[in-house]
């Protein structure tokens, strides 16, 4: 199949230009001002739209194996495609956890049968129990480039140090969910004014910041590499930015819910707003947006966390934490970057180039299993392309999701900008906003 993407704004690493793109046999065949469509090519109108490298999500909970009622690799991939994603990094907190070669292979093989590239983040410790290292080298040999116990951080500093020492020569990065459980345990929302009024036990910002601080110091000690997952406070971002300036190998992501919603959303006791780390203060939300615009974060990552309705229906303190993210992340990022004032270069930087760099999925990374992501649209590469139309106004609805789960905190929220086209692994997956 051939596709001609007509007159879109091609978003490069530092500027945009209007051009046509020809995709032939799954690869970028030409990028030029005007391309005459070969016979049989499907012409896709991209005028006034942003055409860039396919989006990459560093943080997706696909729930398979173990909790297929909430999501499967296949349904998660569909939701991802609708959101403009061409590659997802599957988190290892499945049941059982992805802590060995057999389980990682299972997810990679199932992922290969979806329209997207499904990369895997392996567990740092066996069973994510925080006691013994998982076989990182064996999993790295399969192409695993990120390791995390996400859902919980590695609590024991000596174990984290050992993991960093072990991971360094393997050339892989540890991704940390930063929350000190001794400070956060039992809490279900941000500790502060609102939690005090609602009588909900809080998870203090300090629980996150203390672990960010600790891991920065462990990186300094070990010269290892850490990726900070879903940073939610102004102070966390400041510390990571300072560490990066010192030359430490630290990267970070922010999640859409943390830069669009604050703790006041919990006031109605609706567990759709329960997430770990929790929604923070309005000041933190503003700081995260500012950091995004200033280019201080490497990636926007969804922390897409599907849960069955009966679990999210529980009382706030008893419900599981997590919200859906894949299908609304692009529009929410556009909003946070300043809507009509947002910079398309920055948009693709945080949604594609940055995360591909962290996940080691770029062309230069020569990933053994996945096609190249997060680069320029150059001739010969496998086509991973997303078209975003910043003019479309729409309303998020829990009834129009492609995920198996329905736990979006954005039901009824007005959004601007929508992915109209996703070409992943060379195939047209989403056309005119719908799955092909």
């Amino acid at each position: 199949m051939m596709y001609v993407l007509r007159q879109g704004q091609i978003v490069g690493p530092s500027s945009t230009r209007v051009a046509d793109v020809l995709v032939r046999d799954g690869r970028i065949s030409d990028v030029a001002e005007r391309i005459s469509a070969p016979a049989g090519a499907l012409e896709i109108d991209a005028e006034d739209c942003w055409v860039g490298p396919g989006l990459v999500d560093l943080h997706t909970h696909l729930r398979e194996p173990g909790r297929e009622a909430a999501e499967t690799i296949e349904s998660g991939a569909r939701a991802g495609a609708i959101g403009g994603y061409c590659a997802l990094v599957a988190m290892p907190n499945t049941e059982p956890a992805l802590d060995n070669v057999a389980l990682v292979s299972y997810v990679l093989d199932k992922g290969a049968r979806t329209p997207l590239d499904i990369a895997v983040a392996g567990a740092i410790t066996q069973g994510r129990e925080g006691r013994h290292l998982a076989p990182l080298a064996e999993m790295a040999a399969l192409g695993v480039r990120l390791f995390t116990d996400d859902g919980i951080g590695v609590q024991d500093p000596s174990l984290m140090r050992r993991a960093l020492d072990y991971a360094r020569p393997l050339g892989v990065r540890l991704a940390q969910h930063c929350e000190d459980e001794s400070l956060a345990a039992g809490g279900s929302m941000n500790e502060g004014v609102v939690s005090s009024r609602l009588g909900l036990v809080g998870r203090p910002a300090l629980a996150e910041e203390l672990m960010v601080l600790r891991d920065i110091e462990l990186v300094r000690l070990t010269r290892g590499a850490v990726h900070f997952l879903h940073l939610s406070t102004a102070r966390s971002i400041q510390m990571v930015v300072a560490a990066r300036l010192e030359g430490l190998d630290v990267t970070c992501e922010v999640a859409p819910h943390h830069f669009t919603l604050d703790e006041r959303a919990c006031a109605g006791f609706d567990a759709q707003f329960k997430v770990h780390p929790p929604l923070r203060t309005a000041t933190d939300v503003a700081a995260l947006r500012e950091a995004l615009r200033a280019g201080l974060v490497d990636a926007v990552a969804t922390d897409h966390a599907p849960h069955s309705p009966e679990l999210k229906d529980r009382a706030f303190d008893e419900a599981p934490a997590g919200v859906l993210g894949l299908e609304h992340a692009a529009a929410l990022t556009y909003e946070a970057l300043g809507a009509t004032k947002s910079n398309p270069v920055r948009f693709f930087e945080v949604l594609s180039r940055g995360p591909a760099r962290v996940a080691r999925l770029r062309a230069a990374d020569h990933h053994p299993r996945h096609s190249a992501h997060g680069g320029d649209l150059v001739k010969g590469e496998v086509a991973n392309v997303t078209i975003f139309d910043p003019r479309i106004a729409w309303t998020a609805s829990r009834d129009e999701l492609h995920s198996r789960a329905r736990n979006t905190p954005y039901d009824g929220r007005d959004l601007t900008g929508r992915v109209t086209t996703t070409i992943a692994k060379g195939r047209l997956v989403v056309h005119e906003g719908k799955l092909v």
Partner: protein
Amino acid sequence: MINSIRGRNLLTLNELSDTAILEVLDTAELFVEVNQRTIKKVPALKGRVVASLFFEESTRTRLSFETAAKRLSADVLSLAVASSSVKKGESLRDTIATIDALGIDAVVMRHQSSGAAHQVGGYVPHVRVINAGDGLHQHPTQGLLDVFTVRQVLAERAHAKGSETGKELFTGLRVLIVGDIRHSRVARSDIAAYTALGAEVRVAAPGTLLPASLEEWSVRVVDDFDEALEWADVVGVLRLQRERGTGSFVPSLAEFTETFGLTSERARRLRPHSIIMHPGPMNRGVEIDSAVADSPAAVIERQVSNGVPIRMAALYLTVTGTPEEKTS
């Protein structure tokens, strides 16, 4: 702010105006008289069905609510949670749907989770929900009966009827609440009620038993509990909730008693007119000394008695009324 609970759910006192609170107090005053009759019953809720759902153990509040409902001639459906399908894993939504299917007008519910009554309000919008205590959040009828009791005592001293005094007796009234503020839904409701009526509220507690943030609360933390006792017109002693693990927030119960217990020695600092309150059940010898609890200054039994007319008023107003518009 809400200016009347007529036709509305009673979930929290935080959003009630002084007008709304006074309406409940004045209505309760009428029901006090009913409770003094030989035949303690009025037909106000005849034919109405009140479901009493206590997901958390409670004897006094449950008895008080069920007595109130019966004195209004309502039929009471009482769910014994320990023997119900909740123990078999049934969700709150399904439990409520099942009870609702039997045909009910109101639900009185207590739950161990903050916000559970709010959730139920969303599930059955046609049924009035009265929060009888949710987690650490609110216990509205306790807050109402506490201000009712204070007004009753002060009005008697002034040889007036409570309803004639409105909120006048609360102006500048000095209220000291002591103990486990952090884990107390009673404290949250009490503070809302007292401050709405114009009282000045101060709190005394070990640092670990204060909420994480008092920024939104119109209260002051006292530096010296003993001095504050000399300041107070009303002392509200809270229960130390050992069942919520409060024990680990203080080094020992003995030290808590030593520093924040209302001991006999400390009670001597109180001024002669001061009122001592406790929501019960008491840990005698921990937060309050037995002799203090039984002293004339203590109105603890009166609080219990007033629970019935306050809950009659709450049921009557929420079930039979039509909601008014909110004001900001």
